[in-house]
């Protein structure tokens, strides 16, 4: 019995070494990237990658399709921008406030929506996020159509000057890595096991004694908080919080990124976010209509790689392994 259980442990560790190697290479690339590519572009990718990873925690590991994640992303951007610009808070305090507010909003959204399944869940989250959009349009502190502009980047921990592009870049990279690590840990935790069980077969999880609503609620709050962290970071990077980030199109975009990259894979949303942001910024300088091109790519991807880019890749690799 002990021998068998040891071999299972080894089997779990085997591919982990490969994963660690890939992670090390990717980390080196991320560290070197700002010397080759435009830092603002890279930071945009990282913000959206974290946003998509947070979204993927829900859809990919808890089986919940939220169509209102822009509410957390955009509101957090407003909170970070307002606290830093108007109240003179340090960037780390602004980001913390943004994350906490997004988490609390997630708690409210979750309490209302979590008992509903499938499309009803998606519709309730959409409706709630539309309410947030209209609040953002009307409340005085958001400055309506203008948004909050000219947010100072400030000094991180009173030491690092974020107006330096490289300092800002490495800060964003650190935030992304911390968020990604938290998601990775959540997925590979006792909680993550229960979450996967709920995704796979909720009535069975109930019959095993799990109050599934509570687990889904915790996942929802985690996801909303991390989406908020991503939104707050974006506001500091671009020194701007605007209505764009609370629109339903933004909620749609994060769905698109996650599906393109591969939902339920840890790295898929990062690839998806990178792809969408790259396409948007390159197509913006051409005369091509951006939404049409991205729409076409999405259709092709869904038809050719049903599991998303990373999902399909992993599927083919594991098939070869057998």
């Amino acid at each position, binding site marked *: *019995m*002990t021998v*068998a*259980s040891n071999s*299972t*442990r080894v*089997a779990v560790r085997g591919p982990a070494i490969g994963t660690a190697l890939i992670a090390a290479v990717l980390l080196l690339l991320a560290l070197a990237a700002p010397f080759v590519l435009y830092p603002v572009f890279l930071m945009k990718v990282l913000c959206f990658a974290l946003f998509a990873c947070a979204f993927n925690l829900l859809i990919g590991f808890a089986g919940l399709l939220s169509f209102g994640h822009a509410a957390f992303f955009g509101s957090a951007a407003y909170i970070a921008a307002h606290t830093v610009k108007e109240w003179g808070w340090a960037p780390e305090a602004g980001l913390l406030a943004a994350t906490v507010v997004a988490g609390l909003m997630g708690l409210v959204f979750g309490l209302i929506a979590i008992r509903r399944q499938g499309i009803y869940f998606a519709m309730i989250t959409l409706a709630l996020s539309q309410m947030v959009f209209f609040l953002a349009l009307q409340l005085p502190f958001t400055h309506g159509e203008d948004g909050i502009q000219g947010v100072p980047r400030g000094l991180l921990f009173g030491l690092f000057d974020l107006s330096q592009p490289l300092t800002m870049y490495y800060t964003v990279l650190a935030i992304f890595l911390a968020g990604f690590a*938290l998601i990775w*840990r*959540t997925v*590979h*935790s*006792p*909680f*993550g*096991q*229960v979450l*996967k*069980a709920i995704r*796979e*077969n909720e*009535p*069975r*999880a*109930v*019959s*095993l*004694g*799990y*109050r*599934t609503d*509570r*687990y889904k609620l*915790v996942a929802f709050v*985690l996801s909303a908080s991390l989406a908020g962290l991503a939104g707050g970071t974006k506001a500091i990077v671009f020194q701007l919080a605007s209505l764009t980030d609370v629109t339903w199109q933004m909620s749609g975009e994060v769905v698109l990124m996650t599906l393109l990259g591969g939902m339920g894979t840890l790295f898929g949303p990062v690839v998806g976010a990178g792809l969408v942001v790259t396409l948007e910024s390159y197509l913006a300088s051409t005369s091509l209509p951006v939404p049409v091109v991205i729409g076409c790519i999405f259709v092709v991807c869904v038809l050719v790689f049903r599991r998303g880019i990373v999902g399909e890749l992993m599927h083919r690799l594991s098939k070869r392994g057998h």
Partner: protein
Amino acid sequence: MNAAPNDDIILEARNLTKEFKGFVAVKEVNLQVRRGTIHALIGPNGAGKSTVFNLLTKFLTPTRGQILYKGRDITRTKPADIALMGLVRSFQISAVFPHLSVLENVRVALQRPLGTSFHFWKSESSLYDLHDRALELIEAVNLTPWAGHTAAELPYGRKRALEIATTLALDPEVMLLDEPLAGMGHEDIEGTAALIKRVAADRTVLMVEHNLSVVAHLSDTITVLRRGEILAEGPYEVVSKNPQVMEAYMGTGHA
């Protein structure tokens, strides 16, 4: 009919009734499951046995009536909570977690008592201590060679075996099995029936079945339902000779 708890009766339904928009699916069912027995609930299609089953496991709320478990009223208890009291159900369509491995399927059932199921910051390796117990349970249902495979890869009969192992992981006092033998080939039926018999040695089993002959030698008591009402109850020898039961089953040709 007194209210005093009877030690011998572990699960009891009193005047259980379920109406769906005027249609009475279950009508005034009184059922007593004795501790340590295998009790089968059978009946033709539409007899209401699945409804009774879902009522007993709290997946449906009764319109009227009462459910008692060990003398305690559980009529209003949540389905997740009765599992913690020792009442664990299975499902008609095999209830495994398809993309988890066989080992993980059983481990999910074992991990709740650790109290770390909400700990999203803890490593999965904190669950490795459960592997020995999980593998014992997997061994008990002869799935050891499959332990590392995902549940989706298992043939149907083995999925049912995995489901039983997962249910056993909670060490339930009462196992409620929803058509555990449905859709199985002959060779699987015998194996699974023997397995049920084996696990019932130190616990109570209530199972729903479609087919009278399948449960004949497996159960101590058989309750026959027809159109939401109890038609007959007793050991196989008695029930099978009941003219009404024979009539009910002649029509469907299963007896």
